[in-house]
């Protein structure tokens, strides 16, 4: 579904490339998370996947990017819009302002695509239900909370039925409630396996639970690529400014204190952490009982 070959991109007037010889293949239906420190190139990668680089930002670009069978670098943005969706971090800036109600706002993209009205009505209702916005359908988008507005942004893009959905730190400006709302929508979407999802995130606990695959970026290069339990527990990513989940950190503390074997696989989710510490406790009990 996504095929990137040797992508190198430098912003206009920038001293170094933002993306440096990136090669990447993402199969259809995968939920792929991209992590990395600020400035590592996560947002740039999102723009490259959705065609805003180079069509919007210009700059120097080498390599190939193919998404959903299209050469992103040479296809005009208006053609990509229906195939590849983009949601970014600021919920307010994604409200077009051209429509007065949530329902009409969601339909805006379909109107631009020339979808017949009957079909529009059905698709809009379906997406409103999937994103939990059905009760808010008549409200003005400007009166919604941050989490609701971000779900509206996702709905407005999902309704266009893109094959790939790219989300650039969608929860960074949201409170915990809003974050949960957004991830709940993404979880349901991922379960259908209909859409390939690429998500950049700092909230690693969420990434650990939902992502099929985690890619770590540092200074424009890929430094790790694998399933969450492998990448998020890797010991050497700290030097790239990439943190670890609290569960991993707690487990490493236990290791440092000699309470756990150094080669024991580290947990990245709550479930795994419970299993990890429970097994430590039974070893301890075993010691005591002896």
């Amino acid at each position, binding site marked *: 579904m996504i095929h990137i070959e040797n992508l190198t991109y430098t912003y206009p007037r920038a001293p170094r490339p933002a993306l440096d010889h990136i090669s990447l293949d993402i199969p259809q239906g995968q939920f792929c998370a991209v992590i990395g420190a600020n400035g590592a190139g996560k947002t740039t990668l999102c723009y490259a996947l*959705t065609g*805003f680089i180079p069509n*919007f930002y210009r700059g120097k670009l080498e390599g190939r990017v193919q998404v959903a069978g299209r050469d992103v670098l040479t296809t*005009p*943005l*208006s*053609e990509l*819009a*229906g195939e590849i*969706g*983009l*949601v*970014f971090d*600021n919920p307010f*800036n*994604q*409200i*077009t*302002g*051209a*429509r*007065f*109600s949530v*329902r*009409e706002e969601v*339909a*805006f*993209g*379909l*109107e*631009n*695509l*020339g*979808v*017949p*009205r009957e079909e*529009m*009505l059905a698709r*809009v209702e379906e997406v409103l239900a999937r994103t939990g916005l059905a009760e808010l359908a*008549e*409200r*003005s988008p*400007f*009166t919604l909370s941050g989490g609701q507005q971000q779900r509206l*942004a996702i709905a*407005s*893009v999902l309704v*266009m039925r893109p094959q790939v959905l790219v989300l650039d730190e969608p929860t960074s400006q949201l409170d915990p409630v809003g974050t949960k709302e957004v991830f709940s929508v993404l979880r349901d979407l991922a379960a259908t396996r209909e859409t390939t999802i690429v998500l950049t995130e700092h909230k690693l606990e969420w990434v650990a639970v939902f992502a099929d695959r985690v890619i770590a970026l540092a200074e424009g290069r890929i430094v790790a690529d694998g399933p969450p339990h492998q990448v998020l527990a890797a010991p050497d990513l700290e030097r790239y400014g990439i943190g670890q989940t609290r569960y991993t950190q707690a487990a490493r503390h236990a290791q440092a204190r000699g309470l756990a074997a150094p080669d024991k696989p580290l947990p990245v989710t709550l479930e795994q952490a419970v299993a990890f510490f429970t097994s430590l406790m039974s070893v301890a009990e075993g010691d005591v009982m002896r």
Partner: protein
Amino acid sequence: MSSYAAFSLYVARESGLHRLHPLTKLALTGFCLFASLVLPGAWATYAAFGVILLPLAAWGQVLPLLLRAAWRTVLPFALSLFLIQGFFWTGGTPVLALGPLSLKREGVLFAIQSTGRILLIVSSFLLLSLSTRPDALMIALSQRGVPTGIAYIILATIQIVPRFQAKAATILDAQRSRGLETEGHLRQRFRALLPLIKPLVLGSIVDIEERAIALEARAFSRRGPKTSLLVLVDSPAQAAVRWLLLLAALALLAARLFRAI
């Protein structure tokens, strides 16, 4: 419907006027505008106001709103007109003396005529705004060939303006609490301008980039036929009325040109 927290006069009513197609109301406004500039004499515009606009406003259940808004807008002009053109009309026939100044008959007639003109123009705009949903008007225009970008501009503007006004008020408060002088000497008030304007403008300009990206993600720049979720109701009768208004305007123009009126 509370969806209209927007920079617009529209008020929702269950009225026949509201249910009319937006272009019909636009045609009426255009006719009144034209008539206000072409009708001769001092009193014809008042007649048009009373005979055309007032009954329609009543039908639309917006009569009190219309009168209040019209009064508020026209009054300053009327006052200025009577005072300035009334007293300072060059070489006119005096009818009333007030100290060194005298009210001239021609000036008063002119003031009456101008006030009538302003009244008709302002009221026809008000009637249109009060009874027409902005997005319905934009759809109607887009269907007749007006580029959708223009519809976007108008609708986005009227929703963004209230947010901007709130932002401006916040910046004003914040700067005041930091000691910015906004009262007193003209120079002080003038100096207060830049620290108020700069954050407002710079802050909003940076957002523009992201908003453009969001629009692109909705296929905004796609060329080709677009569809509409909202449906407008038109009728042959309304189309006929629109043609009649056009003919009436032309007839008025012809009558004026040939000095028949």
